[in-house]
C-alpha cells in the first residue's frame, strides 16, 4: 500500500519534471508539444521482458513492459502491477533494432513483434506462428531476426536426422519471410554406441561478410538432450543468404560451444573477430566434458578456429566453468561462472539459487576478474545483454535454491549495472517478479 503511494508520488514527480523540461525547452527548439509540429520527434523507451512470480499453482506469467527512462532500470521498482502486456506461456524475448520479438515455448506457438507506434506506445506490429518451437535466435543484422527450430527426435537411431528449420524474419515488418531447412551437420552416426546419431543443437549464430557462423551441440536424437561426443567445439559455416554449407569446423581444445537456450555461444567483436565460449559444466548440461571451459577465436577473414588462441577460463585465476558469456565491447565480456558443478544436470537453469559468480573476461589479455557488488545468484538470461554507455544491465536473482530448501518469497531480483572497466556492479531497480528475460531500448 505504502509502496504504491510512493510509486504514485514518484510518477507524478516524474511527470512534473518531464513536463517542466518540455515547457522550458519549448522556446529554444522545435520539440514542442504544440500541434503544428511538421516532423514527429523520435521517442525512445526501455522495454523489458518480465517474468512475474507464479501465483498459486500456475507458472509465472511473462509480460512485455515499457519503461519511460533509464532511471527506471537504475532506481526504484519494476512491477507489472496495473501495467504491461500479459503474454501466454513461457517465452523467449529478443530484439532486432527497434523491434522486440517474443515467442512462446511449448504452450504457445506464436512469435509476436512489438514496436513503438507514432505516439510512442508499445504495440503489437505483427505475429506469425511456427511449427514446433523456435529454440535459438540471432539479430544477424539490423533488419533480420534469424530463428531456428531444433526440437525433435527420431524413432530409429539409424535413420537420417531430419533437417533443422531456419526462420528468416523481417525485423522491420515483424513478418516471417521464408523458412529454410538444412541439416547443418549431416555426418550422421551409424546409430551405434561407438558412432551414435545426433541432432545439431544451435547455440549461437553470427553473420560476417556474407558468411553465417553457427555454433552447435550434438545431442542424442531421443529427446533426452543427452550430449554425444561432448569434447569438441563445433561451428558450421554457411554462405548467407544462400544457406549453402561451406564447412564444418571443430576444435579439440575445449567442449561444445554455448549453452542450450542461450543465444550468445558465438559473438562478433568490433574488429570482426568471432569469439566462442565453451562451458564444460555438468550442471549446465554439458555433461561428461573432460576438456576445460574456455574461449576460442575465429579471426576476421578466416573460417577456422585460430590455432594460436585458446583462453582456458577454467584454469585461469578467478576462473571456473562458464554458464554464460556475452560481449560488452572493447575486448571485454561479462560471464557467469558455475560455483558448484556437482548439483546435477540442468539444475543451474532454475530461476532461484546461489549458482553463479559474475566475472569480467578480458578476451585479449586473457584475464578473469570477479565482479564486486553482486552476490552469488541465478538467472537464465534468454536474450543478449543490454549495454548502454559501455555498461551492462543484467537481471539477477539472489536467494537459496528450492532444492536446498530455499523459499521463493525469500529471493530478490534486481538489475545490476556492471562496469566492465572497474569490474564493479551497482544494484539498480528491484524487479518485483522472478526475473527480467530481456532489457531493450527501442525508438519509433
Amino acid at each position: 500500500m505504502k509502496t504504491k503511494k510512493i510509486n504514485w508520488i514518484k510518477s507524478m514527480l516524474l511527470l512534473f519534471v518531464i513536463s517542466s523540461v518540455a515547457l522550458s525547452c519549448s522556446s529554444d527548439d522545435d520539440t514542442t508539444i504544440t500541434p503544428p509540429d511538421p516532423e514527429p520527434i523520435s521517442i525512445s523507451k526501455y522495454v523489458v521482458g518480465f517474468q512475474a512470480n507464479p501465483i498459486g499453482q500456475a507458472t509465472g506469467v511473462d509480460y512485455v513492459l515499457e519503461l519511460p527512462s533509464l532511471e527506471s532500470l537504475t532506481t526504484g521498482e519494476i512491477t507489472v502491477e496495473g501495467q504491461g502486456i500479459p503474454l501466454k506461456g513461457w517465452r523467449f524475448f529478443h530484439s532486432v533494432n527497434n523491434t522486440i520479438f517474443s515467442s512462446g515455448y511449448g504452450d504457445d506457438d506464436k512469435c509476436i513483434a512489438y514496436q513503438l507506434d507514432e505516439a510512442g506506445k508499445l504495440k503489437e506490429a505483427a505475429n506469425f506462428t511456427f511449427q514446433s518451437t523456435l529454440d535459438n535466435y540471432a539479430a544477424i543484422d539490423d533488419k533480420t531476426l534469424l530463428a531456428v527450430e531444433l526440437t525433435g527426435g527420431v524413432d530409429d537411431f539409424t535413420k537420417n536426422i531430419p533437417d533443422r528449420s531456419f526462420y528468416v524474419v523481417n525485423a522491420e515488418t515483424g513478418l516471417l519471410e521464408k523458412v529454410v531447412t538444412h541439416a547443418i551437420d549431416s555426418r550422421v552416426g551409424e546409430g551405434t554406441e561407438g558412432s551414435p546419431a545426433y541432432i545439431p543443437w544451435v547455440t549461437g549464430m553470427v553473420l560476417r561478410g556474407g558468411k553465417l557462423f553457427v555454433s552447435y551441440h550434438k545431442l542424442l536424437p531421443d529427446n533426452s538432450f543427452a550430449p554425444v561426443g561432448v569434447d569438441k567445439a563445433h561451428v558450421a559455416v554457411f554462405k548467407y543468404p544462400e544457406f549453402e554449407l561451406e564447412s564444418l569446423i571443430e576444435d579439440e581444445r575445449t567442449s561444445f560451444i554455448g549453452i542450450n537456450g542461450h543465444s550468445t555461444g558465438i559473438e562478433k567483436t568490433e574488429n570482426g573477430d568471432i569469439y566462442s565460449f565453451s562451458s564444460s559444466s555438468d550442471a549446465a548440461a554439458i555433461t561428461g566434458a573432460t576438456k576445460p571451459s574456455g574461449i576460442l577465436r575465429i579471426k576476421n577473414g578466416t573460417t577456422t578456429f585460430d590455432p594460436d588462441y585458446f583462453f582456458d577460463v577454467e584454469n585461469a585465476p578467478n576462473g571456473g566453468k562458464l554458464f554464460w558469456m556475452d560481449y560488452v565491447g572493447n575486448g571485454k565480456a561479462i560471464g557467469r561462472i558455475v560455483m558448484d558443478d556437482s548439483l546435477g544436470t540442468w539444475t543451474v537453469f532454475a530461476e532461484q539459487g546461489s549458482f553463479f559468480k559474475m566475472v569480467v573476461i578480458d578476451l585479449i589479455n586473457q584475464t578473469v576478474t570477479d565482479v564486486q557488488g553482486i552476490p552469488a545468484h541465478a538467472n537464465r538470461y534468454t536474450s543478449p545483454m543490454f549495454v548502454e554507455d559501455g555498461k551492462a544491465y543484467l537481471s539477477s536473482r539472489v536467494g537459496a535454491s528450492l532444492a536446498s530448501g530455499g523459499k521463493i518469497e525469500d529471493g530478490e531480483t534486481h538489475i545490476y549495472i556492471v562496469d566492465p572497466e572497474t569490474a564493479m556492479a551497482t544494484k539498480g531497480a528491484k524487479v518485483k517478479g522472478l526475473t527480467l528475460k530481456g532489457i531493450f531500448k527501442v525508438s519509433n
Partner: protein
Amino acid sequence: MSVFVLRRNSCLFFLFLCSIVCNAQTNITGVVIDQNSNPVPEASIQVVELKKKGVVSDFEGRFTLEIPSGSYTLKISYVGFKTYLQKVDVISSETTSLTIRLQEDINKLSDVIVKGRTKAQKTREKAFEVEVIETKGLKNMSVDVNSVLMTIPGVNIRQNGGLGSGFDFSLNGLSGKQVKFFIDGIPQENFGSSLSLNNFPATLVERAEVFKGVVPIYLGADALGGAINIITNQRKNDFLDVSYDIGSFNTHRATLNGQYYSDKGFVAKVSSFYNYSDNDYKIDGIEIRDELGNDTGTIRNGVRRFHDAYNSQMINVKAGIVDKKIADQLLVGITASANRNEIQHPIDPQNPFGEVFEENNVIQASIIYEKRNLLKEKLNLKLFAAISENNDKKVDTSSRKYDWFGGFIERSDQDKGEFEFSKTLFEFKDKMHLLNASANYKIGEQSTLNFNYTKNYLKRQGEDPARAGRIAFNDPHILDKNILGLSYDVSLFEDSWSTTLFTKGYLLNSEGIIEDVYANDEDRYTKFKNNFEELGYGVASTYKMSDRIQVKGSFERTFRIPEGYEAFGDGLLLKTNPNLLPEESYNVNIGFLLNNQWDKLRVNFDTNFFIRDTKNLIVLWSEGINSRYFNTADASSIGIEGEIKATYNDNFFVAVNATYQKIQDDVLNERIANIPYLFGNLRAGYNIPNILSNHDKMSLSLDSYFVNEFPFQSFSQGAPEERFFIPEQLSHNIQLGYSFKQGKYNISVQARNVTDAIVKDNLDIQKPGRAFYLKLRYFISN
C-alpha cells in the same frame, strides 16, 4: 467407421428392447405419503408372504406390485417413519389401489448413520456439509453426471468442449487431484478417462453425494478438497431399464441397466452404457494466416470442428447371492470400459489437429461381501476387493499440420508429431489392487463406532514403440496408498444433536527407479523409496433447533499425498524431488438449513460458509529443459454459497443457487486467477400428472448456468485493458418429458444452449452452440 458400427449396434439394441415381453400379473398400485400428505419416495414395500417380492416407491411416492391373487400383508417402511403393515386381498384381473400414510418416528429421525442407509434427504441432514442430487427426475434426460453435479453450489466444472472432452472439477476452490471421485464408495482415482464423470450417464445413477472439504471416513482417499460419491443402483427388486438417445453433432447414447433376484437368493445385475458423438459443432474467431504462418488480420467465424469424435463404452456385470446365512450380500463382478477420444486442438484452439487421439481401457474383477447384524445385531461388515488393469494410450503419429479448412501441409521434419515434439505411441499400463473394508459397531442406542480401511496399490509402466531411447515411466513406479479411518458417531438430546468425531491415517509407500542417462553403469540406476505417514482428524456436528432450522459445522485437517510422478518424476524430463511433502489443508464449513411450509408452498434455504487453508501446494518448476515439483505455494479460500428452493403443490419448483469465493495466494498475497469466483444456476420445473391417462406425467423444466467473467492470469497485474479474461458464461437448457404407464415408457426432448450463446472457457475454448436431443427410455420393475 465407428459411426457405422454404432448404428448397427443401436438397431440390435432396439431389437433387444422389443424382445422383452413381460407376463402381466395382477397389479397392486399405491402411493406412500406422510402425515402432511407429502409423498415419501424410496419407501420400501415388501410382501411379507412372498419372500422376494418388494418394490421401492418412486419420487412421487408411487409404487406398483405384480403378484398372483391371494391375501397378503404389505410391510411399508422408511427411515424416520414407523413401519406400517397393511393387509390386502388381491383378486385376479382387478387392480388394487392403496394409499399408505406413514407416521413419523421421532426417535428414529436422526438415526441415519446407525442404519447405514444414506438416503438422499437423510444424507443432506447429516453433520457433514454434503449435497445430494437425486437423479430420479433426470433419468429421462440426455445428461451425464457432470451436468448434474454442475447444479450444486460450490461446484464448478470447466469442460473443454463437447461430449467426452477433458474437464476440471473444482469444489470450493480446490480442484484436480485435490478432489476425489468414488463410485459406490470405491475410489476411482487411478482409473483413466473411460470411467469418468464426463461420460457416465445420469440414467445409471441413483444419486450423487458431494462432500465439501470434510469427508466421512467411508470414502477412503487423500481428498484434500472434498469427495464425490456416485451411487448406482441400490434397488432390491427385479428391473430392466433401457434407454437410447440421439442428438445434435451425431450424438448417440444408450444405456442398459437391470437386475434379477431369484426366489432362492441368487442375484444378477448388469449396468452398461455406450456413448458416441462427432462433436462437430461450429466455433468462432479463427485467425486466417498465410502459407508461412503470418497473421493476415482476418478472423473467420462458424468454423466446424472436424476431429473431435468421442466414443466410450462400459459394462459392469455382477452376480452372487443375497440374504443368506453366510452373507447378506456376496457378489462377484467384472467391469470393462474403453474409450477413444480424438483431440481437436491443444489449449489454444487456433492450431487444429487432424489425427491425434487418446485411448483408455480398464478391466476390473471385483468381489463384494456384506454381512449385517452380527454380534446381537450390533456389528455390520462390508468388504470390497478388486484387481484391475488400466491402459492409457496417446497416438500421435502424423507429421501433418492441419488448418481449420480441411487442408494440411506435411511438416519438413517427418519425425514430428502433431501434439508432441516427436511422434508418439506412448502408453502406460497400470496394474492395480484395491481393497476396501468397513465395519460399524453400535455401542449403545446413541452411538456407533465406524472403521474403514482402503488400500490402493498401483504399479505403472510406460512404453512407446514409436520412440527410440528413453521414454517416460520406462521403469515401473509403485504407489501403495493405505488410508485408515476411525469415527465415533453420537446422537444426543433426542437426536436433535448429532456429532461425528473422526481420524484418518494416511500411509503411503512409493517406489521407483530413476535412471541417470548421463551416469556410468554402476550409478546409472538409483532405486528411490518414499514413505509418508500423516494423521488427519476432524469433527462434524449438527444441531436441529426445530423442525425448521438446522445448524451444521464441520472441520477437517486433510492431506493429498504426492502421486508417484510428482515425487519421482517420469524418468525422462520430469525430475525427482524425494523431499516433496504432502499438500495439507484445514477445511471448515458452517452451514444453516431452513425450511418452512405455507399450505402447498414449501421453501428450503441452505447456505454454507467455507474456509480452506492449504499449505505446501505442489507446483511444477522448470529447470531448463527439465522440470521438478516443489511445495512452494500456500493458498486459502473463503467463500459463501447458498440455495433457495420453492416447491408448490409438489408440481412446480424453482431453485436458485449462487457461490462466491475468494482464493488467495498466501505467499504473495495475490488473488489467484483462472478460477471462477462468482457463479450460480437456476432450475425450474413443472410436472403435470394424469394428462392423457392415469399414471402418466408431463414435465417441463429449465436450467440456466451462469459464470461471471474472471481473469485468466491475474487480478492485478498487467494493464487492465490488456489482460486476458474468460468472458461471462450464460446458457440455458430446456427439457420436455412425457412418461406414461407409471414410468414404464418415457420420452423426452431437450434443447441445450437454447439461445445459441457463445460460451467460452479455458480462455478461448468455445462450447457447443444450440443442440437438440431426443431420449427414449423403457423401465420395468416388479
